[in-house]
């Protein structure tokens, strides 16, 4: 499978560690993500994947280590600052704004990237994003639901909206935490196809946490395996699948 991989480094994680009291959730993890790559992050439950995500994204402060986006050190930045630098994310559990419509959810996801805060008070109510939102709605095939409240959508539809929101501001790096969780099979194939299309068309880089092996193996070009907070293997899906350490720690058969 081809991706928009161009070789330049977008994300550099250096010696990140995070402890909660005596629990070492992430121990000294380092890796790089190249522009255009779709990197999979897998590992058993409790292996530290989401904690690592939260450290990268400023949701948690790492105990040690550095995070670089492009060439700039972003360690300790707040999630909103990181997002405005072009880093998007989705959460493991569904996170849409139920009282806003699908379109309003998307406009919200883009508005803080346009103009100054004052211009957002005195300018247009939609910050000029209605057209972008309409395109995104079509791209994720939610067109007929554009004016429904997000809370009234089915789980799978909300999951798509959640993804669409992460892409609304045209990020160069998106971290997706279990995008396939709870999504049915036919929708899964389409979700994968949409993600690949975005990767091809915009060159956006993805890091994906996922438990669905089939999904992650077919979507990603490279995979990192975490166990007990440390990287135990990395490489192409085939290499990782055959690695005895991975089989022991994770696949368990």
């Amino acid at each position, binding site marked *: 499978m081809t991706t928009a991989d161009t070789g330049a480094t977008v994300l550099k994680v250096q010696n990140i560690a995070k402890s909660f009291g005596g629990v070492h959730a992430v121990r000294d993890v380092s890796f790089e993500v190249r522009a255009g790559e779709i990197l999979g992050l897998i590992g058993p439950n409790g292996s530290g994947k989401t904690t690592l995500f939260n450290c990268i*994204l400023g949701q948690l402060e790492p105990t040690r280590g550095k995070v670089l986006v492009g060439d700039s050190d972003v360690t300790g930045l707040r999630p909103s600052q990181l*997002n405005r630098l072009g880093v998007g994310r989705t959460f493991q559990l569904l996170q*849409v704004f139920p009282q806003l419509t699908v379109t309003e959810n998307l406009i919200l*996801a883009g*508005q803080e990237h346009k103009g100054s*805060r004052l211009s957002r008070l005195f300018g247009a109510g939609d910050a000029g994003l209605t057209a972008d939102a309409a395109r995104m709605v079509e791209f994720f*095939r939610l067109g*007929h639901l554009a004016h429904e409240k997000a809370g009234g959508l089915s789980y799978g539809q909300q999951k798509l909206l959640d993804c669409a929101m992460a892409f609304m501001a045209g990020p160069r790096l998106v971290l997706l935490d279990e995008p396939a969780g709870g999504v049915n099979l036919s929708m899964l194939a389409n979700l994968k196809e949409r993600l690949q299309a975005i990767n091809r068309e915009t060159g956006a880089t993805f890091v994906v946490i996922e438990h669905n092996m089939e999904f992650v193996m077919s979507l990603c070009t490279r995979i990192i395996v975490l166990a007990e907070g440390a990287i135990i293997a990395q490489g192409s899906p085939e290499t990782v699948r055959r690695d005895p350490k991975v089989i022991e720690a994770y696949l368990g058969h």
Partner: protein
Amino acid sequence: MTMKTLGSVLLTAILAVLILAPADLTGLGLPWGGFRRSDIDVLTLWLITAIAAMGVNLIVGYAGQETLAQAAFLGIGAYLTALMTKAGYPFVAAFLASGLLSFVVGILLGFPALRVQKHYLAFVTLAFTVFAWLVFRNEEWLTGGVTGIQNIPRPTLFGFRSKPALVYYWFALAMTVALALVMAWILRSPWGRAFTALRENAIRAESLGVDVRTYTLLAFAIGSAYGGLAGALYAPFVEFIDPSPFALGPSLLFLLMVVVGGMGTQAGPFIGAAVAVLLQNRLEILQSSNPAFAHLSYLLVYAILVMVLMAFCPTGIVGLWQRITAPRRRPHADDKGPILGQVKS
């Protein structure tokens, strides 16, 4: 579109009634003598209360924070306006200064909201109200203590003296409409959307670039400024202020008003304030005219009303209205829609 047109026609009609109904129209050849002075004052009090409630609605109903401090901001505005106008400054300057001071103090009150949430935040704002009330009561050199400040002048605006009850009512009405329009503008702007996002899911909002800290402080600042502006209108209206209307009890009532009217709706504060102000006034009249009701407590009736309403309609009177008038429908997928958009079959 038709619903929108209907809405604006209805609003215009309500506004026309509010302008004309209290006035004596016999001079225009119409058989309508207008309202009594005491009834006009009740309407003015309703408008001022509604302005303060709009602020609470922004903080609590839209931005999802808590405040039990609105009466304190009403007090800040009222005392500042009283002091400034008595010192000879024009009312307009006092009015703007009241809004500005409340805006700044509101930012300070917002800082705890960045650390604590929900009822803990309510406790912090409660402590602020008690503190402000103690200042109003004890700093006699400034506030006159329990004896308060008397003879607060009513302003003269564009050559019109607002001393007559009806003129001051019209003035308050104009200010209320202006402030309601400003609020509607804020809520329709991206700021309004960001406030709602704060209420619904602050962590997700932050991950989408919404600066949760700044918007939280802004919600407190703007909401509190509405309290201060209401206070600036309150002082010349009653012409005498003392600390009692700015205590904790009234702060709780402001919150209740917003809940009763309908949190997070633009009509909510007006309806909630109407219920609170009119109910109290009507019950007082009933008590004084009929000895059988002499022991009927306004708060008792209000409390029972609130409990019944909350049990059967937690979204308030606006929510009740929406429930009655809403067409019965559920969003569903288009049958011929693409597979990604389909609901589970």
